[in-house]
Each structure stands twice: as C-alpha cells, then as structure tokens.
C-alpha cells in the first residue's frame, strides 16, 4: 500500500496509485502477455490484505456470531461488529447499526423494494427511476409495482447523458413515494446530483434510494451529506470479497421496515404461530452471515483509506480524462456519456466491430474489457445500440494500460475487415 502522497507525482507515474504488487492477480500472464485489467466496474481485483484478512479469520477466529459463549465466538462477533463500524465510519453513517450486511448491491435494492415497498405502496402511487438504471435498480421495482399496483416513471436523459433535472418537477408529485436512482451510471459514467434530488424528493414526502455500487469504490461518499434514505453497494466492486454488500438506511426507515427473511438471529421471541423481531440491523440479517466477507470488506476499506478516497478520485478522474482523449483519436469510434464529471469508465463502439468480437480480440492481447448490455438494456435501447464495449479503471491502472487499449483498437479493424450489412 502506498502512503497518501503527492497525487501529481502518481499521475505521470507508470506504476498506478495502488501498488500493483499489492494485487497478486496483476502479476498474471494472459495469452502470454501481462494482464491489463480494465473490467473494474464489473468487479475489482483483490489486494493481498483482503485475501489474507479472510484467510486469517478462518485460521484463527472462525465461529458463528452473536450467540456463542466461547472465545472463538466472542472474537468472531467482535470482528464482525468491528467491520460494521468500519463500514459506518467510511460512509459517514451516524451509527453502525444503520449498516445492514447483505450479499451485494442487488440484494440491498431488492430488500428495500420488497420490505419497504410492499408495505408502503399502493395502487396509484408512483416510483420514479431514471432510464439509465442498472437492472438491479429497475427489475425489483417492476416486480413490486406489479404486486402493489404502483406505477413506474422514468426521469429522462439529456442528449449528453446527464439527467434532465429541469424535468424533475414535472415527474415529482405527491404521488411519488420512492425515488430510486444511481449515483454513477455503469454505462455512461454520469454522476447524478444526489443531494439535490434527495432534497427535492423529500420535500414532497418521497423516500430516496441511491444505487451507490459505482460510486462508493471511487469517491468519498457521505450518507449524511447526500441526505438519502437508503444507499446500496457491493464489496466486490471496491476491492473486497464477493458475497458481501451493504444496505445503509436512515434509522427511522429501517425501524419502520418489516424484515423480508425469517430465521435465526433476526428474532427476539418465536412462538409456533408468530414471532417478534430483533432490533436493527439484526432483524434483516437472518441466518448465519458472511462473517469472513464482512471482515474482508473492512480490510478493503482500511486499504482504501490508507490511500485516501480524495486521492483515488483525483487519480481516476485524470486517468479517465486521458482515456477519453486517447479513445477519441480512434477513427469512427463512438463514445457514450457526458464529458465531465464522470465516473472512471468509458463505454464505446468501434464501427463495424461488434463489442463481443472486440473484447475477444483484446483478450488475446491480455486486455480485459467488458462487452454487452451491462445490465442496462433500457439505456442501451435509448442509445439505439444492442451492446457496447466498456473500459473501466481502478487506481492500479495506468496510462500505459490506456495506451495498450487504444493501440489494440487501432488494429482491430484490420482483423475483422469491412463488414457489409
């Protein structure tokens, strides 16, 4: 891990802001060449400190949590709750218990949709989304709308890929019960004005749900400053393990929300016919939680804090700017999304080469990007494409990685030749 330092210095360095040596997988060769990993928006790689945190837990303190009166159980419980406190302080949560551990951002969003939505929505109510939502922040609302009779509405985009905030007032009304939207689009890179939307939504009594899967890993996020009611993210996109994520909620919201899953840990008293619930957050954590995953997430947060989220945001924004500049030099390329500010990813299409073929071609040169609909089919339909390529960056990426990508894009046309239609 690199100490927080002079960001300037790193921007020109070829070593990245994270030390590549911290990430064992980056030593790997793919098709005989060194791996250039540019699929970070799908999932990030894991530093040794995270891998080791999970392994160390299993080697020394593994036990089930909260109920055991023995040393391992106490250690496991302490580490699990310490991980919750680490998450809380990372996102500015007033209290640790406002952080519910779930599997991933998708589960967090479904939990709100089902557990809050089912009891607070009825026919005629409206749920306001945007057309650029990830399926994980769209499909759950479709399901709940279908069961409750609520209606989905969609805030449109301006031609440059930013939200049409000027249209917000025509979409918001007393009927709006929920406004659920992404903080950073995983296709366009658009950064939405969360605090402003929350303020305007709450003025009309709507609750706000922020999909922060693409923001928490890349910039400082403070739930109090954002002013939202719920916020969801995944550990695996922020250098942490798979199988763990977080739903943050305002205390009142979590308290008024019924649990979705029943089982061990989430109960206070169980009779044959009915039961009473434990307190927040336990009432939402039925069954044995992913203790090792929570500990791994805390290790990832410690790693991120060691570098500093401001430094990470600064480094990534410069790298993305460089990538935009270099990508635009590729003849005929189409680049999607706003100029700036934007998240550290770029979706694009090279004429005559389907993104699948492009991705396969790049893989042969060790470069991993993503190709497809990025779980945002409605947005792609809006953009009138079936698929795009997407390069997404992390602080272990460098300008050399961008150069490798752009150079390869220059050769791809030759390989596939001209395609008629």
């Amino acid at each position: 891990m690199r100490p927080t330092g002079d960001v300037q210095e790193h921007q020109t360095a070829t070593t990245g802001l994270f030390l590549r040596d911290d990430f064992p997988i980056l030593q790997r060769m793919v098709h005989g060449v060194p791996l250039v990993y540019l699929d970070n928006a799908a999932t990030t790689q894991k530093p040794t400190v995270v891998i080791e945190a999970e392994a160390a837990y299993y080697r020394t303190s593994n036990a089930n949590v909260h109920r055991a009166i023995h040393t391992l159980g106490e250690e496991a419980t302490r580490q699990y709750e310490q991980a919750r406190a680490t998450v809380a302080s990372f996102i500015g949560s007033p209290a640790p218990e406002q952080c519910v551990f779930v599997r991933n951002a998708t589960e967090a969003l479904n939990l709100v949709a089902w557990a809050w939505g089912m009891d607070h929505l009825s026919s005629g109510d409206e749920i306001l989304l945007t057309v650029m939502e990830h399926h994980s922040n769209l499909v759950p609302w479709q399901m709940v709308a279908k069961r409750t009779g609520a209606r989905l509405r969609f805030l449109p985009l301006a031609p440059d890929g930013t939200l049409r905030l000027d249209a917000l007032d025509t979409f918001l009304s007393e009927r709006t019960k929920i406004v659920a939207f992404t903080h950073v689009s995983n296709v366009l890179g658009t950064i939405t004005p969360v605090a402003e939307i929350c303020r305007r939504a709450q003025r009309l009594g709507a609750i706000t749900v922020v999909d922060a899967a693409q923001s928490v890993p890349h910039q400082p996020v403070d739930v109090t400053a954002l002013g939202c009611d719920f916020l969801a993210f995944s550990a695996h996109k922020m250098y942490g393990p798979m199988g763990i994520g977080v739903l943050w909620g305002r205390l009142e919201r979590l308290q008024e929300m019924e649990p979705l899953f029943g089982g061990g840990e989430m109960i206070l008293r169980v009779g044959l016919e009915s039961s009473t619930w434990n307190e927040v957050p336990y009432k939402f954590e039925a069954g044995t939680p992913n203790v090792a995953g929570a500990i791994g997430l805390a290790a990832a947060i410690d790693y991120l804090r060691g570098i500093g989220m401001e430094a990470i945001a600064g480094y990534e924004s410069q790298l993305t700017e460089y990538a935009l500049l270099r990508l635009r030099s590729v003849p005929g390329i189409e680049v999607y999304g706003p100029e700036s500010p934007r998240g550290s990813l770029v979706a694009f299409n090279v004429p005559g080469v389907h993104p699948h073929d492009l991705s396969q071609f790049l893989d042969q040169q060790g470069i991993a990007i993503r190709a497809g609909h990025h779980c945002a089919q409605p947005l792609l339909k809006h953009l009138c494409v079936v698929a795009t390529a997407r390069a997404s960056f992390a602080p272990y990426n460098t300008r050399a990685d961008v150069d490798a990508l752009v150079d390869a894009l220059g050769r791809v046309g030759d390989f596939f030749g001209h395609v008629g239609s």
Partner: protein
Amino acid sequence: MSDLEDLYREVILDHYRNPRNRGTLTGDAVLHAELQNPTCGDEIELALAFDDQGRIADVRFAGRGCSISMASASMLTEALRGKTREDALELDRQVQAMLRGEGDPPSPDQDLAALSGVAQFPVRVKCATLAWHALEHALGS
C-alpha cells in the same frame, strides 16, 4: 494469435461480412422464432418455409449480433435447405455437440465445421448456439 485465428476462421469472417439468406418470409407454411442472448442482448429472428414434401424450402434470418452469432446463423440457413424437420433437428444436435466440444463437425467439408473452434471459448458458445436454439423454437422442439 493462433487461438484467435482458430476462433475467427476465414470462412466465419466471410459469412459475417457477407451473410447468406438475410431477410424474412411470410405465408401460412412459414415457421418463425425470435430469440435473444441474455449475455449481451443480441437478437435473432428465424423464418422457415416448408414445401409439400415437408422439406425446408427456404430459410431466412434477421437480427444483430457478433461475428460468431451472425456467421452461425448464416451457415444454418445454408445447411438447412432441403432438410426434413427430423434431419434439421439431427443436424442441430450434431452442431450443438460440436459447439460444446463433445462431438465432431456434422460433415467436415461443410462451412459449419469452421465453428468447431468456438468450443474453446465457453462464453462464445452462447453466441454460436443462438440461431440453433431459435431453430428448435421454430420447430417447436
């Protein structure tokens, strides 16, 4: 780049650049199917017309997709012509087995044999089978 060239054999790129039998068909004896690849959203539409003897008289495809899915569709349309429903399904079985790496190409001198390299690329198998799954849907099997 031998792996890549094994996937993208010249005949595949030729079918991709110059697709055969693009279009659609109408009429009572025409079977249709429309299918999408959940991995990427690629789409295919297939139309099959039978003659009086129950043989496939014409096949057309439409849709958008990568070179592998479009070439596979184009080859399918060529390979099916003149076949009965049973023959078509038998060919489908052979091609699917080849694409999973579990069988030889149906006939080594057919263009279809070029798709055998796809088996090494599991994620692309879904691209190559899209048209063949559409065929199964169209034939109601």
